[in-house]
């Protein structure tokens, strides 16, 4: 099994589940607030920032993936989450990250792929 860090697994019945628009991880908004996004905190800075959480995560997602071994899993590779923390991910997340994040990604030379499967190549 991979030794990647594990994200907080939200309680099964929890409401207020939100998915990160950038990495598609699913957490409760409380977790986003307390620890931020385990994968993209560096760029999104969600921790303690409710406005940012609202802008960069969404409750509008479809499909839940329990990513147990991201390194070896094909599902993770397909979802492009292979390098991310173990945890719950959404198969599809509606919406795009705010423009400033897109610009930031661009400035770093990272291609932004929306998680809504709107562009497939």
């Amino acid at each position, binding site marked *: 099994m991979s030794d990647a860090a594990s994200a907080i697994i939200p309680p099964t019945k929890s409401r207020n589940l939100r998915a990160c628009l950038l990495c598609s991880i699913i957490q409760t908004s409380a977790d986003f607030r307390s620890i931020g996004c385990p994968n993209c905190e560096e760029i999104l*800075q969600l921790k303690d920032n409710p406005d940012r959480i609202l802008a960069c995560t969404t409750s509008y997602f479809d*499909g839940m993936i*329990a990513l*147990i071994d991201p390194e070896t899993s094909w599902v993770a590779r397909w979802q492009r989450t292979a*390098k991310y923390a173990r945890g719950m991910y959404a*198969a*599809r997340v509606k919406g795009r990250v705010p423009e400033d994040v897109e610009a930031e990604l661009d400035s770093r030379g990272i291609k932004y792929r929306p998680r809504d499967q709107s562009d497939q*190549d």
Partner: protein
Amino acid sequence: MSDIEDPHSSPPRRKLYDDSEDEEEESEVEEPGKKKPKRRHKRDALSRFLDIEAEVSDEEEEEDPDSDFGVDGFITKETDAHDGEDDDEGEFDDGRHHARVDKQRRQAEGSGGEKSAEEIARELADRYGRAGGGRRFTGEMSEIPQRLLMPSVHDASLWQVRVKPGREREIVFSLMRKSLDLEYTAKPLSILSAFQRDSLPGMIYVEARSSQQVSQACAGLVGVYPSRGIHLVPIDEMALLLLIKKVDAGDKVVPGTWVRLKRGKYAGDLAQVVDVTENGDEVGVRFVPRVDLNPREDDGPGGRKRKKGAPTTNSNSSARPPQRLFNYEEVIKVYGRNTVSKRGPVFVFLSDTYKDGFIEKDIKLNSIILEDVNPTLDEITMFSRNPDSNLSLEDGMVDLSIIAEASRKAALAVLQPGDHIEVFQGEQSGVHGIVQEIQGETLTITALGVDLEGQKIDLPARSVRKRFKPGDHVKVMQGKNAGETGLVVSVSDSNAASERRENTVVTFISDMSMQEVSVFSKDLREAAEVGNTTNVVGEYELHDLVQLDPQTVGVIYKTQLDSFLILTQHSQSRLVRPHQISLRKDKKDSLRAIATDRDSHEIRVGDMMKEFDGEQRKGRVLHIHQSHYAFLHNRDIAENGGVFVTRARSLVSINPKGALGSTGSKLPPGADLTKMNPASAGGASTGSLVGSTIGRGPRDHLIGAHVVVIKGPHKGYVGIVKDTNGVGLTGVARVELNTGNKVISIEKGKLHRKLPDGRTEPVEGPGATWGRNNSMGPPSSNRASGWGNNNNSGSRTPGWSGGRTPGGAGGRTPGWGNRTPFGAGGGGGGGRTPNPYASGGNHTPAWAPSSKTPNPYAANGGHTPAWNVGSKTPNPYANGGRTPNPYANPSSGSGTSWGGATPGQSAWSTDNSNDRAAAGWGSPTPADAGNGIGGWDAEIPSGTWSAPTPAFAATPSSPGFAPTPAIPSTPAGLGTTPGSYPNSNPNSYLYAYSNYPTDYSAPTPASAQSVYAAPTPGMGRRGEYDIDMRDEFHPPPTWLLSAHLLHHLPSLRIRILGTKHSNPPYLDGKYESLDAHILAASRVADNFEQTALIRLDLDKSPFANPATVDALKQEPSLERSFLTTYLHPVPPSSQDDSAIVLTGPRKGEKVKLRQRPDSGSQTELVVVETMLDSGGGSADGDGADGAGKAGGAFWECQKDWMCACW
């Protein structure tokens, strides 16, 4: 405005205003500045929170000299540090710029203020140092095109697992958690991932190398069905599973879409999407506001208070205000000018924004309904209405095509072959024809018209709309006008705008109401039929009896869409709309109504009757009104839908009376003599069908009584009976609670009447005393519930039921019967006690023994009146022979029951006479007799007997039944109380009640008491059986020593039991059955036997063997040490006894019985009242008036959970 604006709630908005409305804002900003010095001194470090924003900005502007104040200084430095770094790092790094903005914003919101300096330093290092902490987001792999990520043979496979639909997410969660939990155990899960798709219900997919790993992972998870197969997903389908795109409504949300709001004041209201936020999470919608223009007065006019209170009051108010476009003038008139602020074209009122009369709001996507919106024409016209004529609304006109879009599917669903359609889009636009067939989304039509005549054309269903022309006869298929038919008068499709619309608005004249109805063409189809199949309009149904005005009632004989035709009792026909009906008569009213026909037979709803004179119409009785008018129905009569009204007196039954049994008054020859009962001959109150004609009697006098609820969720509540419905214990009373201004419906069995002296008694059934019975309204009430089996017998005389003889208490008797080993005297009959109820037969075996039992009584104890008292059982019947009549009556079901109980009693009494006939009631302690029941003795509440209830008198007075064979068979002891049973009232018991007291005024004590004592096992209230299923409480051997009894010890009344059963008998068993005081008891080491110091009370040991008592009187001291094992609690036995609760959640409390325990069952629940001062029990021997103040809560306690006090 500025003083209303809450500075805490919306900092962003403030910034906005800073730009736009400088003047006002500036003055506002200054204000806090002036106040600042004062505030600072008040504030401590913890309560700084949100004001900081203002502080910081002030300081920046004003260079406030106070800035060395701790908190502010800290913030200021912080900000300075930022500024310095900004200069260094420059603006070109976009990301950092944003980071900085973010950081500042967070600080502005105050959360930053909560951090320690170290934390902030670390954060800064994290953020700007780049070196330490946080993994840099690299977005790896995002360059690789998706197709290169397709699975290969080297990848693990996907396995489909069936799960319980609806639990997919849960199970995926469980798998995740399970794998984390088991990660470092000996058996980690070897699955790689698992996922679920919302569009694939009932299955999850697990990524693993083998199916075995999958089943291992799924083992033990609830809702997973590995047995239904774990299927391998073909490699080429794997990617598709993750690519599934839900056809989700969110995508369809575009400005202009109609949606409905899910929650709050506007739940269900139609709204139109104005814009959609970037991430699709929220949509801006506009809808018609519901501003409350008649707010509650207590809010006070205008002002801050209103502002705060208004949102809650609005949401709380049950009736929401009507939809109405926002009108500035009206609103300020009600709420005051200050509440509404104007910003350009927008009004802000109560933090909502109003534009063009509509409310505009950002709403979360998941709190709006996107599917099946089906906006109606009315709703949409509301949106198209221009609120203000001088305001030109560019989007004021509603594009109907949007509705069309939304209801496309619905439209397709209503297309049928044969429909006349026209094509409104695509190549064939303009063509019209007739639908030939429909295949999925494709229609085949036969075109009509000049050049295409007869050709068959395939078309997509979405490009056609139904076509109607004036003159068509149509029927509405759905919507609120469904079922309506009519002639089309106009079709609104002439203008160009509607050319591309799927739906046109068709107006037709209804066949029913002759009014114009406008509907969408999609909801229509051509139909030749006329008429309406529904019989229900609103809450009214065909053939309902309705009240039109205080003088007029009528029966609906025809329903139309929104009106009825009603035949009034004066035989007039009226067209009535629902709102003109003041009241629908309850069906029950009609069922209860009594009328008699020409032959004085009773008429009931449903009877087939015939007019005696006139047209001699026949019909089935629909309703009876005021015992005078009967509404009948006959399908053969065309007029008025077959309904006609006539006088009840002019009707005769079609079926010969008597044979049908629907008469309670006429006796067929050879009828049971019991039916000669004057009460039943009264005609009004009896009928052979159980429950169908319960006499209506006068108003139930329970109404207005003060009662206390003794069971159920409202237990302990006190209230006033407002209304009653139904009879007996299962009847329902509506009780207005004293608390909370609430009216509840509750079974009468759960009510106790509160007497002025604080005691309570059941309102129905046993224990309901004289006052109640005397005034009792429907005399027959007990029957239906109490003696359901006896319904055909003379026992149904009101006397009985009304009597509510203590016998009712017998309801608990099954318990008795079962627990008492009756074998001794009366034979096995006792054990079968409950049977008679069930069988209801006349000559049940149980009964037979009873008729024989008198002899033993007579022989043994019959002479001792005291004994009679003790045997609170059928003895009296046997013994006194005066009461047997009703019971013994072989034709009476109830008689059976009574008889059934007798043997048991006889056994019991035999015991008595054997052992201790001499001593008062003879302490027939069952334990002593080897029966093993502890409580009979305790059941004899002498106090209660002494108050002979006339209720009982009803029973004896049933000598009306005299000619029963039973009397001869009970020869014994009649002589003892000849006068006490008033045969003087063989008349209707209805009227006899008032006499009972008189009858009783000369009671021969023996008879009265013995009779009274009878807890009439036979008259079981069946509803009570379950109560006896409660577990008996057996106190542990060391119950005395429990902590909660500690300070009650001196007051406990205990009884020595079981000494004779130990081997050898403990202290020779000579103390058996003695009652005693506890002098001291304390716990000794566990390996010793626990003892207590007790003082025997020889004078008050009713169940002790008199010989023993005499012997013990010689003893020098009545104090001695005793093993606690043999000390048993004495359950309280009569009303107002004090007792200590031994177990249960309220153990240790001192209570007072507020209900007479009325059965032998140890597990009976009795109402008790907690004594507020529970410490002061005294051994003064007066249990009923033990110290302690009443006034605690009323509650119910199982009898054997308590121990009586001296």
